[in-house]
């Protein structure tokens, strides 16, 4: 069973505490010894590709699933065995899950009715919640009569009106179109700031995570890869998985020449690079991860970290362009440039040493 890391000492600053959570579905291990702490008032996103376990983790905190090992505490109270309806949470679902037979008003007031709040208090609280999500004059409509964005707001109002210590959001924006997504994202940010409640937010979209989170938990294959604030996850991914997921599209596997003081020199395929070591490098080869926007046009200082190649493809993106470059030895690189280059042009690009991140090579992954 579990080795609980002392869930008894209720840390009053912690809204949620997960210790050694493991969850299996038959042969598949969905979560492997995940431990996590969410501070009061913090918005934490669980970020990762599908199948990484983020939704499973959310469902465990909500109580829809029971962990095979580990403990969960909400607001200092051990809830691992507690059924969902006894946990103090507010939750929104990917498809909103609005009760189709109840009006907006009755949907939002449902949780209050379950708590036994007298009707006289329910009406003003519901009205306040709807005002907070900026959805007025719709109280008597049925969910089927609302647009997707409106349904989303009702779902949020319903979750927060009960004033739970913890809010859970399961990919709330994935069913909205691009423009609505950005608008609703700002709404969620605003609401979170006003209510200041701990929130766990699941998404597979890194832009959402970067813009909303106080801290991001990057997950893959049921294991936590990195927990850090957005700037750090963006600029200093902890391992190659996180780097790949966060948009480091250039990953070159090269031979390690020398290593000194955290700086690594690598070469291979007629490329020489110097980069910063992010993890211990056990093997003779290593991977260098570079963001396309950090592959800058022109030579590096003293020719350092310069790569020469031919333009194979140009994608115009408005304020910049995505350029695919192929070196003489056939290595494909992605760069972003302010000015589009012409197909077939020879270009020279370089990357600053601090922005070439070196990770151990995994033969199976390359």
């Amino acid at each position: 069973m579990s080795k609980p890391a002392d869930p008894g000492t209720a840390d009053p600053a912690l809204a949620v505490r997960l210790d050694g959570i493991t969850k299996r579905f038959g042969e598949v291990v969905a979560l492997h010894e995940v431990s996590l702490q969410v501070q009061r008032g913090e918005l934490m996103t669980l970020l990762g590709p599908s199948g990484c376990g983020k939704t499973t983790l959310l469902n465990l905190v909500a109580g829809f699933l029971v962990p095979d090992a580990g403990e969960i505490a909400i607001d200092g109270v051990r809830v691992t065995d507690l059924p969902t309806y006894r946990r103090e949470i507010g939750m929104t679902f990917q498809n909103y899950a609005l009760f189709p037979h109840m009006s907006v008003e009755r949907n939002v007031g449902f949780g209050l009715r379950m708590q036994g709040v007298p009707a006289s208090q329910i009406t003003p609280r519901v009205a306040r919640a709807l005002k907070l999500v900026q959805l007025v004059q719709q109280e008597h409509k049925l969910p089927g009569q609302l647009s997707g964005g409106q349904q989303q707001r009702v779902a949020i109002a319903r979750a927060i009106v009960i004033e739970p210590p913890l809010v859970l959001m399961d990919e709330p924006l994935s069913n909205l179109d691009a423009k609505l997504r950005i608008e609703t994202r700002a709404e969620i940010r605003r609401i979170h700031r006003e209510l200041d409640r701990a929130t766990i937010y699941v998404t597979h979209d890194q832009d959402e995570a970067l813009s909303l989170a106080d801290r991001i938990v990057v997950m893959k294959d049921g294991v936590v890869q990195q927990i850090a604030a957005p700037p750090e996850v963006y600029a200093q991914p902890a391992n190659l998985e996180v780097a790949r997921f966060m948009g480091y599209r250039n990953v070159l596997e090269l031979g390690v020449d020398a290593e000194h003081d955290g700086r690594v020199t690598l070469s291979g395929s007629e490329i020489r690079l110097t980069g910063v070591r992010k993890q211990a490098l056990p093997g003779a080869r290593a991977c260098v991860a570079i963001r396309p926007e950090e592959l800058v046009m022109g030579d590096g200082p003293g020719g350092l970290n310069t790569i020469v190649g031919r333009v194979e493809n140009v994608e115009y993106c408005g304020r910049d362009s995505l350029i695919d470059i192929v070196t003489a030895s056939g290595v494909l690189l992605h760069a972003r440039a302010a000015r589009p280059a012409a197909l077939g042009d020879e270009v020279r690009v370089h990357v600053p040493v601090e922005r070439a991140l070196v990770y151990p090579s995994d033969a199976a992954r390359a």
Partner: protein
Amino acid sequence: MSRSSARSSIRATLRGREAPVSATTLARAPFDRALLLVVPATAFMLILFVYPFLYGLGLSFEPKEGGALGNYRHFFTTDNLWPTIWTTLRLAVPATLINVGLALPIAYKMRVKTRYQRWVTTILVVPITLGTVLIAEGALTYFGPKGWLSQTLQLLHIYDGPIRLTHNYWGVLISLVISGFPFAFLLILSYITGIDPVLARAAAALGADPAAQFRHIYLPLLAPGLAMCFCLAFVQAFSVFPSAVLLGSPAGPTRVISIAAYEAAFEQYDYSLASAIAMIMGFVQLVIVAAVLGLRNLFYRGPVTGGKG
């Protein structure tokens, strides 16, 4: 779609080439030929369905004696005829209530699709295969005065007296429950599994315990389906015939309306009266079904998912 485009697309089809491309022809081209075949079949089927009914209706107004309403007058004034309505209702309504009432909680428990659910569902459906006569035979053997239930109870010294569960009201009721339950169960199960389970999860996250989840989420969304199920089960039960003969006492307490019609047709050779009785039977069914469906319209009738997605 226009006749000419239909013709041209059919010709193209017969020649093995793609029909002229337009949104409507592309969507409908595969079935143009079928449509042509269906038209005479439609006419034929409509005749098969509607004509017997209309003919029977007409026939009921042509009694052997008396005016157009002679049969109906005869029915409501004859002492062994008009009480059959009540007798049948006395059997059909409780049987339906039991069937629907039992099926609902069991189907609710079975709403999660597990292997257990599939097997139980299969077994619960078995009585459909039994057929009324087999059920009657089995019931007679088991519940009869010298049947196995009686002998078991005597063996266990629980009850020594005779058991009166056959050749009376109870035998027919038991048989109606056994034969009607599978339909009610399957129907309700299909309605319940049609309700998005995430709605129950959302209710739980808002503090609703399982009882509250059923009361506030499932029940209101099921109400229309339950009404439909009640109607179908009732119609089945109201049409009871073989059980009433084999397991009841057709002369008296379980003289159901179908027996009256049967006698009119086969013993008195009065097809006109038989039709009239069948019409009355249908009418009573219609009244009850209309009443229940009318009640159902007071409830929510829209989709049972939780929004986009």
